[in-house]
C-alpha cells in the first residue's frame, strides 16, 4: 500500500535532523496559522500563488533562494565545525550523516539557491529592461517556478522522511547505483532534480523567447542592456544543456528502478559515460549561473560610475563567445579519468581560452570605472568585491585546467576552494549586488545602506578567511569530503576556516538585519521617483514598484542606455510627456495552473521515491488533467481600462516631473 514507506523512515535515533525538521515544521505551521487567522489567505492566493506577473514570480524565486540559502548555509556551518573538531577523532557527525550533509549542501546551493536567485532576478528585471509588459509565456513561467519549489520541498522532506543521497552533488555511479546505495537517498536526489529540471527548462524557454520576441520599439539587439544579453546567453545554455542532465538522470533512474545497465559495472554498462554526460551539462551549468551575474555587474558598474558601459560591443561578443566555448571544455572535470594526453591537452587549452573573454569583461568593467564619478553604494561594493575575488578564482581555475597540475589537485581541498571562489565571489556576490540594486524597484523602498555595507564587509572578509585556508590544505594533500583525518598539518587551516565561517555567518545576520531595519523604516526609505540610483536602463523609467502593466506606454528607444537618453531629453525640454492619451491594456489572467501542477508533481515525486505506484498514477493523472484544463481555457486575458491606466500613471508622472526639475537645479 505504501511501498517502501514505514515508520523506520523517520530517523528517531538522529536528533539533529529531527529537531531541525520539527523546528522548520513548527515555523511553517506558525506562518500558515498567522496567514489564515489574519485573513491573508485570499490575498496570498490571488496576488502571489496564482500570479502570472513576471515581477511577482521573480520575487517568489528570490524568496525561495533566500530560504534555501539559510538551509544550505546551516549545512556548511555543520561541515566546517565537523572538520575543525574531527582531527584524530570522529567529530560529532557520523560518516553516513556527514555524507548526506555535503551532498545536500551542494545540491541545494546549486539547484535551489544559485539557480532560483539568478532566474528570479532575470524574471523580475528583463521585461522591464526590454520595455515590455510581460514575458512570452506567463503561465508557463508560473509552472516553472512552482516545479522548482517542488524540487526544493522534496529535498527538504528527505531530512525527516527517509534520507538524502550520500553520493555528492552529482551522484556518481557506481556509488549511486542500487547495489551501493540501496536506500531512497539517491531517489530523492534524482526525482527532485528531474522535477525542478523541467521547471528550469521551462523558465529558460520563456526567457529566451522573451528576449528574442518581445522588445519595445527601437530596442534592437545592440541596444539591449548588458543584463538582457547575458540573460539570453544563459538561457540559451539552459535550453541546450538541461536536457542532457535530464537524460543522464533518467538513465540512472532506469538503472535503479528497472534493472537497466547504463552505468553499472556489469552487463556492458559504462560508469565513465555518466561522468562524461553529467559534465557535458555541468560545465555549461556554471556559466548559466555566472553569466547573469556578469550582466548584473555590468549594470551596476555603469550606473554607479555614471558612465556608459565601456566596450559594450566587445562585452556582447565576449558573452556569446563564453556561451559557445562553455560547451567545449567539459572534460576538464575528469582529466584524471585517463583519456590520455591528446584529449586532455585539447580540453585543457579550450578551458584556458574561456578565460580570455572573461578577462575582456574584467577590463571593460575597470575601464567603465576609470574616469567615472564612482558612488560606493552597497551594490557597487559587491561588484568591486566580486572583481577582486573572481580574478583569484579564475586564476586558480586556469591552474586546475592544466592537466598535469590537475592530477595533483583534482578532488583536493584546492578544488573546493576554486569553485567556491568563483561561485561565491561570482554568482552569490552578483545575486547580492542585484538584490541590493533592484530591491527598491521591486518593493518601492530602498534598503538600509549601513547594514548593507556591514553585511558586505563581513561576507567579503569572512569569505577569504574561510576559503584561502582550503587552498593551503589542498596543497598539503587534503582531499575533499573528509569526515575525519589524522594529519596534524591540516588542523590549523581547518580551525581558521571555521573562524571564517563564523565571520560569514555574521555577514548573513547583517543581511537579515538590513531587511528587517529597512522594512521598519520603509516610509523614510520610500522611493517615490522610481529611479533611486540615477539609473540608465528602462526598468528605472517606471514607478517603484511598477504597475502590473509595467509601462503605460511602450517606451520608444533611440539608443543604448535608453532611460539615460530620455532623462537628458526631458531635462532639455523640462517636461517628460505632453498630456498623453491612454489606451486600454490587456494583461494575462492569473492562473492556479502552476501551483496545482506542482502539487500533483510533488505527490508523484514522493510516490516515485517510495515506490507507491497507485499514488504515482494519481499524481500523474492530476498533473496531466491540470494541463488539459489549462489548454482548453476560454479567456486568458483581462482588460485594464484606459482611465485606470491614466490614474496610475499620472501619479508616477507627477513624481517624476519633480525629479527632473530638481535635477535641473542641481
Amino acid at each position, binding site marked *: 500500500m505504501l511501498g517502501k514507506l514505514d515508520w523506520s523512515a523517520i530517523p528517531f535515533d538522529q536528533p539533529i535532523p529531527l529537531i531541525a525538521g520539527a523546528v522548520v515544521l513548527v515555523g511553517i505551521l506558525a506562518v500558515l496559522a498567522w496567514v489564515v487567522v489574519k485573513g491573508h489567505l485570499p490575498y496570498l492566493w490571488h496576488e502571489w500563488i496564482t500570479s502570472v506577473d513576471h515581477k511577482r514570480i521573480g520575487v517568489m524565486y528570490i524568496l525561495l533562494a533566500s530560504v534555501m540559502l539559510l538551509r544550505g548555509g546551516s549545512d556548511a556551518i555543520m561541515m566546517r565545525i565537523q572538520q575543525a573538531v574531527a582531527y584524530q577523532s570522529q567529530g560529532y557527525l557520523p560518516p553516513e550523516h556527514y555524507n548526506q550533509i555535503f551532498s545536500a549542501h551542494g545540491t541545494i546551493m546549486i539547484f535551489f539557491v544559485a539557480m532560483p536567485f539568478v532566474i528570479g532576478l532575470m524574471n523580475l528585471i528583463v521585461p522591464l529592461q526590454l520595455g515590455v509588459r510581460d514575458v512570452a509565456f506567463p503561465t508557463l513561467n508560473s509552472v516553472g517556478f512552482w516545479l522548482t519549489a517542488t524540487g526544493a520541498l522534496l529535498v527538504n522532506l528527505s531530512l525527516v522522511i527517509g534520507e538524502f543521497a550520500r553520493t555528492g552533488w552529482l551522484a556518481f555511479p557506481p556509488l549511486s547505483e542500487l547495489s551501493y546505495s540501496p536506500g531512497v537517498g539517491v531517489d530523492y536526489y534524482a526525482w527532485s532534480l528531474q522535477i525542478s529540471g523541467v521547471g528550469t527548462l521551462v523558465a529558460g524557454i520563456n526567457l529566451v523567447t522573451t528576449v*528574442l*520576441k*518581445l*522588445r*519595445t*520599439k*527601437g530596442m*534592437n*539587439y*545592440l541596444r539591449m542592456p548588458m543584463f538582457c544579453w547575458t540573460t539570453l546567453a544563459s538561457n*540559451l545554455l539552459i535550453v*541546450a544543456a538541461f536536457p*542532457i542532465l535530464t537524460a543522464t538522470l533518467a538513465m540512472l533512474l532506469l538503472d535503479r528502478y528497472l534493472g537497466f545497465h547504463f552505468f553499472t559495472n556489469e552487463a556492458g554498462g*559504462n560508469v*565513465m*559515460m555518466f561522468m*562524461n*554526460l553529467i559534465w*557535458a551539462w555541468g560545465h555549461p551549468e556554471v556559466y548559466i549561473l555566472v553569466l547573469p551575474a556578469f550582466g548584473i555587474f555590468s549594470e551596476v558598474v555603469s550606473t554607479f560610475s555614471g558612465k556608459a558601459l565601456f566596450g559594450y560591443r566587445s562585452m556582447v561578443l565576449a558573452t556569446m563567445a563564453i556561451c*559557445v566555448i562553455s*560547451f*567545449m571544455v*567539459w*572534460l576538464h572535470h575528469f582529466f584524471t*579519468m*585517463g*583519456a*590520455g*594526453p*591528446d*584529449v586532455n591537452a585539447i580540453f585543457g587549452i579550450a578551458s584556458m581560452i574561456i578565460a580570455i573573454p572573461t578577462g575582456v569583461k574584467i577590463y571593460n568593467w575597470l575601464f567603465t570605472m576609470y574616469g567615472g564619478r564612482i558612488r560606493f553604494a552597497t551594490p557597487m561594493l559587491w561588484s568591486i568585491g566580486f572583481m577582486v575575488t573572481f580574478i583569484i578564482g579564475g586564476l586558480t581555475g586556469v591552474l586546475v585546467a592544466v592537466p598535469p597540475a590537475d592530477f595533483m589537485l583534482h578532488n583536493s581541498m584546492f578544488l573546493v576552494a576554486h569553485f567556491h571562489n568563483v561561485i561565491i565571489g561570482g554568482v552569490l556576490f552578483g545575486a547580492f549586488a542585484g538584490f541590493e540594486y533592484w530591491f527598491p524597484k521591486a518593493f518601492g523602498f530602498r534598503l538600509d545602506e549601513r547594514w548593507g555595507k556591514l553585511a558586505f564587509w563581513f561576507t567579503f572578509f569572512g569569505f577569504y578567511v574561510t576559503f584561502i585556508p582550503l587552498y593551503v590544505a589542498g596543497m598539503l594533500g587534503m582531499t575533499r569530503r573528509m569526515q575525519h583525518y589524522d594529519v596534524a598539518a591540516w588542523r590549523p587551516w581547518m580551525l581558521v576556516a571555521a573562524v571564517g565561517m563564523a565571520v560569514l555567518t555574521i555577514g548573513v545576520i547583517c543581511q537579515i538585519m538590513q531587511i528587517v531595519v529597512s522594512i521598519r523604516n520603509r516610509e523614510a526609505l520610500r522611493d517615490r521617483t522610481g529611479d533611486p540610483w540615477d539609473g540608465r536602463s528602462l526598468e528605472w523609467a517606471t514607478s517603484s514598484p511598477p504597475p502590473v502593466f509595467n509601462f503605460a506606454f511602450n517606451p520608444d528607444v*533611440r539608443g543604448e542606455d535608453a532611460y539615460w537618453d530620455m532623462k537628458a531629453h526631458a531635462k532639455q525640454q523640462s517636461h517628460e510627456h505632453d498630456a498623453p492619451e491612454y489606451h486600454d491594456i490587456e494583461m494575462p489572467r492569473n492562473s492556479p495552473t502552476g501551483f496545482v501542477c506542482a502539487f500533483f508533481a510533488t505527490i508523484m515525486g514522493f510516490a516515485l521515491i517510495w515506490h507507491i505506484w497507485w499514488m504515482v498514477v494519481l499524481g500523474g493523472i492530476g498533473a496531466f488533467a491540470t494541463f488539459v484544463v489549462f489548454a482548453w481555457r476560454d479567456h486568458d486575458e483581462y482588460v485594464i481600462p484606459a482611465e485606470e491606466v491614466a490614474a496610475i500613471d499620472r501619479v508616477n508622472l507627477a513624481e517624476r516631473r519633480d525629479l527632473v526639475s530638481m535635477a535641473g537645479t542641481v
Partner: protein
Amino acid sequence: MSDQTHMLAGHDLAPGDEEQHSVGARILGYVVGLALALLLTATSFFIAGTDLVWQPSIPVALIVLAIAQMGVHLVFFLHITTGPDNTNNVLALAFGLLVVFLVVGGTVWIMSHLNANMPPMDQIMPMRR
C-alpha cells in the same frame, strides 16, 4: 541585427505563422513534403538491400538520404526558410546543431580514448594472474 529601428518583434514570426497563403496552397505544401519524405524513405530501404550499386557506397548513400530527409522535414513541416523573417529560427537551428555536434562528437572522441593510459592488453593479461 542591423540598426533597424522598427519593431523587430513584428518581423520575426514563429514557424507556421508567417505565410497567410490559402488553405489549398498550404495543403499542397504538406502533400509535396509528404511525397518527398516517402520517396526518400523508400529509396533508403531500397538502397540498403540492393546489389545494383557499388557496395561500400551504400552507407554513404544512406547518410546523404538521411540528411535530405531532415532537410525535407525542416522545410515542409517545420517551415524553416531563409527569408528575413526567419532569422531567429535559422539561428536557433544552427545553435542546436552546433551543440549536438560538440556534445556527440566530443563524447565519441573522449570515450574512444579512455583506455589511453592503460598498458596494452598483452601486458595486462599476464598481470591478472
